[in-house]
């Protein structure tokens, strides 16, 4: 689960990391109020940032500067309600505009191959770290935290040195690097990233200037498997931004990803679901979704999966592919019959059920007049053919 930037900032600040002030606002008026407070506290301007979980908000015009509360209200009005990569912006973060002297990258991520937390840092922050990683791998320092003891002081010092920091920033960077790993461990995150980590010039109320190392932007992704032990974090899930279908899928413990094609897929197992999609595509069709009902799925889950698939008006055919292991084929078959009897829209279905109780499943499906297939390849081809037939009838291309 991705956290919104303002939530990520909260977690960093709670761990004692230097995060500039700022608050989230859901209306232009509220944004103006926050801006007024920040300007009164000495900010030389504010930045209004769209809070969305997709990248590229800067290019899309979702980040704007403002010099006065009125201006903040205006730019917030522009940003709130705009659509970025299909997501409607409903919240903005209003924070002091920073006088940035230098930008760094600092991040902690789960390194699967090494089975360690990997801390990465670079003196070249503010740009895409993936690009730096590709083009100048040596420009990135990589340190693996100890699996039990976390990021040790000497490791954090290595990172701080590699960033090219000096003087008081060294100790600050050590504290921040250790803090990132602590935030990761305490919240079961798989990614905690500060980009940019920046040296900013600030003016105090008395007019004196001071340079500080601060976390200007933060990105945190949580381990979904650990959310049950972090109810406070689960509560930060942004339902505004989540597709209602995704919400239902999550509640039913169905893995569901909406795609653009016309052939709905209902499969048990992620690998088999991807394979089913691959075969649909190979047969000339386009999958409408990835959907994995998980192991031992009950009739109720099957019905919910059907609802999810049919909620997409583009779906013309449903391909069901079940290899029974824990999952009992007859139970899935009954779930399909039950689901079809209740659904509002009737679409052709091609059903393949093998494995545990497949014979009984076949009997149920035949009695209910489902179209069945013996092999996965055949099922995919039949589904694509059915979609084509409907497409021809509807005047489309069937994809």
């Amino acid at each position: 689960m991705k956290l919104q930037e303002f939530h990520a900032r909260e977690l960093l600040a709670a761990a004692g990391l230097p995060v500039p002030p700022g608050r989230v606002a859901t209306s232009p008026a509220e944004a103006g109020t926050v801006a007024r407070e920040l300007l009164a506290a000495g900010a030389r301007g504010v930045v209004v940032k769209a809070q969305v979980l997709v990248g590229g908000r800067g290019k899309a015009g979702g980040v704007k500067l403002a010099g006065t509360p009125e201006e903040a209200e205006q730019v917030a009005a522009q940003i709130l309600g705009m659509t970025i990569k299909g997501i409607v912006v409903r919240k903005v973060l209003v924070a002091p505009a920073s006088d940035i002297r230098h930008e760094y990258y600092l991040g902690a991520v789960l390194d699967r191959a090494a089975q360690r937390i990997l801390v990465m840092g670079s003196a070249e922050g503010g740009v895409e770290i993936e690009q730096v990683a590709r083009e100048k791998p040596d420009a990135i320092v990589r340190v693996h935290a100890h699996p039990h003891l976390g990021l040790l002081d000497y490791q954090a010092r290595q990172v701080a040195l590699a960033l090219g920091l000096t003087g008081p920033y060294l100790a600050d960077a050590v504290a921040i690097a250790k803090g990132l790993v602590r935030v990761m461990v305490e919240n079961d995150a798989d990614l905690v990233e500060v980009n940019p980590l920046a040296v900013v010039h600030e003016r105090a109320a008395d007019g004196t200037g001071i340079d500080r190392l601060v976390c200007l932007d933060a990105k945190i992704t949580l381990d979904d498997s650990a959310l049950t032990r972090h109810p406070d974090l689960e509560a930060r899930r942004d339902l505004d931004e989540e597709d209602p279908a995704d919400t239902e899928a999550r509640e039913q413990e169905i893995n569901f990803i909406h795609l653009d094609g016309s052939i709905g897929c209902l499969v048990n197992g992620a690998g088999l679901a991807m394979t089913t999609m691959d075969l649909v595509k190979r047969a000339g069709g386009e999958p409408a979704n990835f959907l994995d009902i998980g192991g031992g799925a009950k009739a109720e889950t099957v019905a919910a999966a059907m609802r999810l698939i049919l909620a997409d008006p583009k779906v013309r055919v449903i391909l069901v592919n079940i290899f029974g292991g824990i999952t009992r084929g007859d139970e899935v078959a009954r779930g399909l019959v039950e689901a079809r009897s209740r659904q509002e829209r009737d679409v052709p279905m091609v059903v393949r059920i093998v494995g545990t109780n497949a014979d009984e499943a076949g009997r149920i499906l035949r009695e209910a007049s489902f179209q069945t297939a013996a092999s996965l390849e055949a099922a995919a081809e039949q589904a694509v053919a059915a979609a084509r037939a409907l497409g021809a009838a509807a005047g489309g291309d069937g994809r």
Partner: protein
Amino acid sequence: MSILVGRDTRLVVQGITGREGEFHARQMQAYGTRIVGGTRFGKGGQRALDGTVPVFDTVHEAVREGGANTSVIYVPAPSAPDAILEAVDAGIQLIVCITERIPALDMLRVMPVVREAGARLIGPNCPGVTSPGRAKVGIIPGSIHREGPVGLVSRSGTLTYEVVQALTDAGLGQSTCVGIGGDPIIGTTHRDVLELFAADPETEAVVLIGEIGGSAEEEAAAWAAEHLRDVPRAAFIAGRTAPEGKRMGHAGAIISGGSGTATAKVAALEAAGFRVAETPGQIAQLLIDQGVRPQAVRAG
């Protein structure tokens, strides 16, 4: 012979009194696996599976009194890391963890302890290991197998069954089928299993089933290029058509940058001499093309 599990397996089922644990313990016992005990803290002294299997409070007792050398874990995710560590401490050498949804950082803490003890963990979130005709440890349906020369390793669950069934239907039996699990942190990798197959005289061919995400398949390919030169080998990668950046159920299935894509994996495997199938159904033929001889298709 076979790898990991076989006729010498003396299994303890951790969590034998749970719904899943009991169900699969019955299946394993019916397959012929020797179950010497189950564990459930507080129920020591009872018996499970219609009185055929003693229930112990601890894995240590199952080792001491039942001679267990292998464990399979069906306890819920919050207890699973401790169950692994208990098995390690009791001296179990092969631990198969079926439990899914164990937080990755829990596994991060567990793995160094497993390694230090020299134990082997399969999984978590895996379907287990079956050596057809000898022993089944996990949840892979027993009916899909037949004995034979093909060693199979896979990150997936039902996709594994699909491939195994297709091999069996084509007359290609299996020495051992290993489902290593699709979680970010797992105890045993594709490469580890290939190494075991390479040392097994009964395994004459290998099948590697992978998915997009991570670099485990590429690492296995690099090893195989050097060490499996004369072994017939085929592979299948799921997710060729998965859109970039989408998360496909397994935490492992995140495409990041250029690495981990189906294209990269297929290329690495082909460069290492694997014949890579486009559908699960093609795998058997790719092995037969490399000289693996199918057995007569069995009756029924």
